[in-house]
């Protein structure tokens, strides 16, 4: 409840401040015109309705997706160092995007504004499927979770090298696009992306909440969870699919944003424990808040230009994270 209030407050801040500061009047009249369907909007009102508001909302969806993805993956792998990109989703998406930046024009692969999200999504999906297929081991008898983790690391390395290779052969402006995209930016936000990312985020969180108890049971280990009636393979499949959908869709629109998925679950575990029922809901809220604040600082610090948001999340997130981890009363 507190988090929800903070989220609303943050939304207010992020929509009001930026390259230019909007007055409260302008916000209220533009909201009013929006609801009543009034098309006659002045410049500031249009900035609010067509740039600030979709960007702020997209930011919340993406932050929620990343944080919930992190929570789910940490619970599934029973490992606090896991982040949502672990199964290859975000590096695959980055590779897809790089492919488009460098070779898109040459091969005339272009379907308008949707091309970049589409190739990024496909890249993320491909990498993730590759990780899953390679980690299927019926006969080796190895612990499938550890195998999945290691294959994930390997596939991530391959795709990151792929991005590196593409930047190497790219011309300068292309290389800049790749760099910018792999550090994340929300500047492309519009109402379409808000709808699409919003749908996947809400859907996935609702599904995840249904499996919160089973993920809790998994904290005792796979065998104990099975003995509590959990169908473990079904649980893995569902949670991984949810994570891939959420992360691939979010990454496809805003690029790779690191660290939110890792930090948010830890912050919450310290404050309100590890019960996934609360953790999933709260990490959606806190993820939204933190990413909104990060986006606000990314826009404010070098105004009127923008920093890539991934830089802000890493520079602010890492020190906080390390301080928290070193606290005595956080035992994991």
């Amino acid at each position, binding site marked *: 409840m507190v988090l929800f209030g903070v989220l609303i407050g943050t939304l207010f801040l992020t929509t009001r401040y930026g390259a230019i500061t909007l007055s409260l009047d302008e916000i209220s009249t533009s909201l009013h015109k929006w609801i009543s369907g009034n098309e006659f909007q002045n410049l500031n009102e249009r900035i609010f309705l067509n740039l600030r508001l979709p960007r702020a909302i997209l930011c919340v969806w993406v932050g929620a997706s990343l944080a919930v993805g992190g929570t789910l993956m*940490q*619970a599934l792998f*029973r*490992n*606090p160092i896991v982040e949502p990109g672990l199964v290859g989703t975000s590096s695959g998406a980055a590779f897809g995007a790089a492919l488009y930046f460098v070779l898109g024009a040459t091969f005339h692969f272009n379907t308008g504004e949707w091309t970049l999200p589409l190739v990024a999504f496909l890249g993320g999906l491909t990498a993730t499927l590759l990780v899953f297929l390679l980690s299927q081991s019926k006969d080796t008898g190895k612990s499938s979770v550890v195998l999945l983790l290691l294959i994930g690391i390997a596939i991530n390395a391959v795709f990151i090298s792929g991005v590196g290779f593409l930047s190497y052969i790219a011309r300068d402006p292309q290389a800049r696009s790749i760099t910018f995209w792999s550090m994340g930016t929300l500047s492309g936000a519009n109402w379409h992306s808000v709808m699409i990312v919003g749908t996947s985020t809400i859907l996935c969180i609702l599904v995840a909440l*249904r499996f919160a*108890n*089973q993920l*809790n*049971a998994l*904290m*005792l*280990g796979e*065998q*104990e969870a*099975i*003995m*509590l*009636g*959990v*169908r473990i393979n079904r649980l893995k499949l569902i949670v991984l699919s949810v994570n891939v959908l959420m992360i691939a869709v979010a990454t496809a629109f805003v690029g790779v944003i690191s660290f939110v998925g890792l930090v948010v679950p830890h912050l919450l*575990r310290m404050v309100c*424990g*590890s*019960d996934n*029922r609360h953790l999933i809901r709260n990490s959606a809220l806190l993820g939204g808040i933190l990413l909104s604040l990060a986006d606000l600082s990314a826009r404010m610090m070098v105004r009127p230009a923008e920093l890539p948001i991934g830089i802000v999340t890493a520079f602010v997130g890492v020190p906080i994270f390390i301080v928290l981890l070193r606290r005595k009363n*956080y*035992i*994991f």
Partner: protein
Amino acid sequence: MLRAENISFQIGKRILLHDISVDFSSGKINLILGANGAGKSTLIKILSGMIPPQSGNIFYGNQNIKQIKPYQLAQSRAVLSQNIDVSFPLTVWEVVLMGRYPFFRGAPSAKDKAVCEETITYFDLQEFRHRNYATLSGGEKQRVHFARVAAQIWLPQKQEGNYLLLDEPLTFLDVYYQFDFMNKLCDLVKMHGWTAVGVVHDLNLAGKYGDHITLMYDGRILTQGEKASVLTKENIYKAYGLYTETVLENNSVRLHF
């Protein structure tokens, strides 16, 4: 009643269980004994449904385990194993509440909470309930899990009573808590009519508390029955290769090594 019928299990060419048939009756403490590698833990895993047998059948009451859905089985069968590590900070209360997970989706009902309160009281864990599980000692952790497992099968589901399987539950307990644990187990089994089936290593504890003993050797059942008839010098020598003296007094068998 829990029954194993002609259970066999092998990994590669190594036969772990060879045509095992045994009945475990309710309201009794049934103990499985045998040297390392005799197949005790494998048998417990198959009995609990964690791994399916390659041939043979397991019956809970008169229901074949193959016909019971995992969550239904979890409502009447609990398993206590050893050395469970939790990957994230959890309070003792949260761990105990997990015993009720087969019964609720979303939030626990008042009944689920009441059951957990009862088991927490029963196992003297009131002072620990808000403690982080990871900060407890090995013995305290095992008590928490006993409370969790008890909460899982605290309320009767069917007429024949619930099932408790124990896989070396005493490993990390000191002598005092080993006896404390077995006394509590005895009381609970009598009180709730559970069918308790467990693997233990301490032959004297088995001789004191076991109602029915299954002695295994090399994937087969050497002998089974009342403790006085199973825990004899000859059988112990066959199973463990150890010479012992056995004394029967006050309905408990004592072994001198």
